[in-house]
């Protein structure tokens, strides 16, 4: 609503002046903007008088100001309207000055104190434990044992459940730990063999976890939504994205960039998919199953454990629980990448390079066929003889 100044306006429509009428305004708020009724007359009179007094005062002030400024009525000269583009002054002369001032302030407040055992929520994301150093206490502290209400359980999880408390199923952390270590071993080995690992975590509160874990593991991430058909209809969905050819030392080979141009681009599939909330990613797991891609997933008590290849029984709703499990797997992947690079330094590839060569040959063949279709007298494929010889 556009607010107008509450100056008394004349000539209102007299619609509610009948005394005793149910629509007759009984309070001043109802009467604003309407003709006064016997009920509101007294109040309105006093308000009107006050408004008139204000107006006359305002007029007096203005006329005094006008006298001071030779007839021109001055405008509000408060600092913010000094100039259209005037910036408020910066509290520090530069960013470096600000940083040093804040650092000095922090040092001054910390002077004489020693903070021990402070909990920082970001530690679980920035510096997760290794698979060998995860303990049952850590899993418990990060709420990995909390399952869902007993009415919502999936009976396939019965061997993972420790018991019931407060109406929810409690997951056995010993089982969680052993399955977690098994999954970590799988992740490490896939990374060591140069496989494409994909972290999928579509809950809003796990975005940072997924991105950080994927970057640490030199892997790939999805934090918003798995597009159905990314594998089954990859040519339509993923073909716009760039791919690259790398050598044993993970350096990009630019001479193949031309071969990977738009039309010749082929779609890649992950070699291992880690799903942090399988309940919401059923389609993703189904597609992975179609293409024989092994999956790892955090299996809560309401999830069917058969959906994933390597289930990790645990809490998929708490961000801390997800951060811990995803962090451990990413640490394992990091170790695998390190082993792969170590071997590459010594000139040994931990995976067959023939796959890449076949892929590139296929691309060049496709390019050859395309040339022929384009009308050129293209080369014959190997082994073909001209029948008119």
């Amino acid at each position, binding site marked *: 609503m*556009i607010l*107008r*100044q509450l100056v008394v*306006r*004349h*000539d209102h429509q007299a619609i509610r002046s009948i005394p005793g009428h149910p629509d007759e305004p009984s309070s001043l708020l109802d009467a604003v903007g309407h003709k006064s009724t016997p009920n509101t007359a007294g109040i309105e009179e006093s308000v009107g008088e006050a408004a008139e007094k204000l107006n006359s005062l305002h007029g007096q002030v*203005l006329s005094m100001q006008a006298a001071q400024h030779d007839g021109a*009525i001055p*405008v509000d000269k408060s600092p913010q*309207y000094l100039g259209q*583009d005037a*910036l*408020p002054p*910066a*509290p*520090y*002369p*530069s*960013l470096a000055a*600000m940083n040093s001032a804040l650092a000095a302030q922090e040092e001054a407040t910390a002077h004489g104190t020693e903070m021990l055992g402070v909990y920082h929520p970001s530690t679980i994301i920035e510096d997760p434990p290794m698979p060998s150093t995860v303990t049952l206490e850590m899993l418990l502290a990060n709420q990995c044992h909390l399952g869902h209400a007993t009415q919502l359980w999936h009976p396939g999880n019965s061997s993972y459940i420790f018991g019931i408390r407060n109406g929810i199923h409690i997951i056995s952390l010993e089982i969680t730990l052993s399955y977690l270590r098994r999954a970590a071993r799988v992740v490490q080995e896939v990374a060591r063999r*140069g496989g494409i690992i*994909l972290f999928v975590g579509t809950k809003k509160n796990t975005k940072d976890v997924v*991105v950080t874990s994927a*970057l640490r593991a030199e*892997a*790939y*991430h*999805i934090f*918003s*939504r798995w*597009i159905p058909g990314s594998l089954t209809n990859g040519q339509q*969905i*993923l073909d*716009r*994205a*760039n*791919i*690259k*050819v*790398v*050598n*044993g*030392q993970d*350096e990009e080979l630019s001479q*193949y960039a031309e071969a990977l141009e738009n039309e010749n681009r082929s779609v*890649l599939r992950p070699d291992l998919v880690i799903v942090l909330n399988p309940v919401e990613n059923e389609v993703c797991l189904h597609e992975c199953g179609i293409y024989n891609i092994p999956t790892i997933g955090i299996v809560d008590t309401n999830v069917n454990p058969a959906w994933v290849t390597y289930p990790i029984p645990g809490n998929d709703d708490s961000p801390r629980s997800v951060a811990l499990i995803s962090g451990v797997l990413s640490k394992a992947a990091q170790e695998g990448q390190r082993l792969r690079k170590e071997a*590459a330094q010594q*000139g040994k*590839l931990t*995976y067959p*390079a023939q*796959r*890449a*060569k076949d*892929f*590139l040959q296929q691309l060049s063949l496709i390019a050859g066929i395309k040339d022929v279709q384009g009308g050129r007298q293209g080369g014959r494929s190997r*082994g*073909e*003889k001209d029948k008119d*010889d």
Partner: protein
Amino acid sequence: MAQKALSSFFGRATWTCRRCRTNQQWIQRPQFSTSLSRREELEIKTAPEIDFEGGQRSDAPARILPASPSYFTGAPVFNDDLLLLQSLMNRFQKVPQVPADKAPRMAWLRLSQYRSASGERVGAAKYASILRLLTRLNRIHPQLRPDEVQDVLEKFLRPGAQEVQKARPGTIDVYGRSKGVGRRKESSAKVYLIEGTGEILVNGKSIVQAFPRVHDRESAMWPLKVSERIDKYNVFALVAGGGVTGQAEAVTLGLARALLVHEPALKPVLRRAGCVTRDPRAVERKKPGRLKARKKPTWVKR
């Protein structure tokens, strides 16, 4: 020539199994001979060079990988941009800001321009999240803004001269007139303001003839009334469309805009008086399943 005769003789007279037919070398050889009767070019597939280094050459392809960690999202460029802006926000959220109206005026890429730049069909809501981050990063005080933030913001600037993106201020012509355009509901008003004695003409008629209602007359003159400049300016307004009150309100807005050309410093006064905002209220459309915009047919239990 001899080859052709031979192949036609043997190709048609004898039956060859599929394997022999597809393997071209066999057809040329006579079926009853185990040795080559004449010279011919055999296809020799030479072995590759010996790898003495014992490892991979640095230019040998080893793996095909996606270029971006967001490859499987289907929109990797958009995702990477979003992550970059969010990371900058996280790092520099404590740096002092300026109020939104004082931040440098930047024209960001339009959705169509971003789509063609990234090559992805990004949704409008998704691009809006990027725009929100850009406006927030743009509010970091320019003096304290890190270079990397400035570089990233410049990547999203609409191409074209910076001067083009500034709002053009209105002008006063040779006769001392300023023009303001105002709209309300279906009415549109062109208001010309010139310093004068306080005459008002609306569509060539006096204001009393144009707006019989006092309320409408007061609305039309409101910008001059609150700034106490009724006797300082002459107003010439051309209004069309809509009804009487709509035209009066359109004149209000047009007059305010014309007045701001003469005296830009009056903006806070007029804003507090409610003359600067264009009233967006318009007749609501009729919807299917209803009789009017809101009126629904009588509810029947069965």
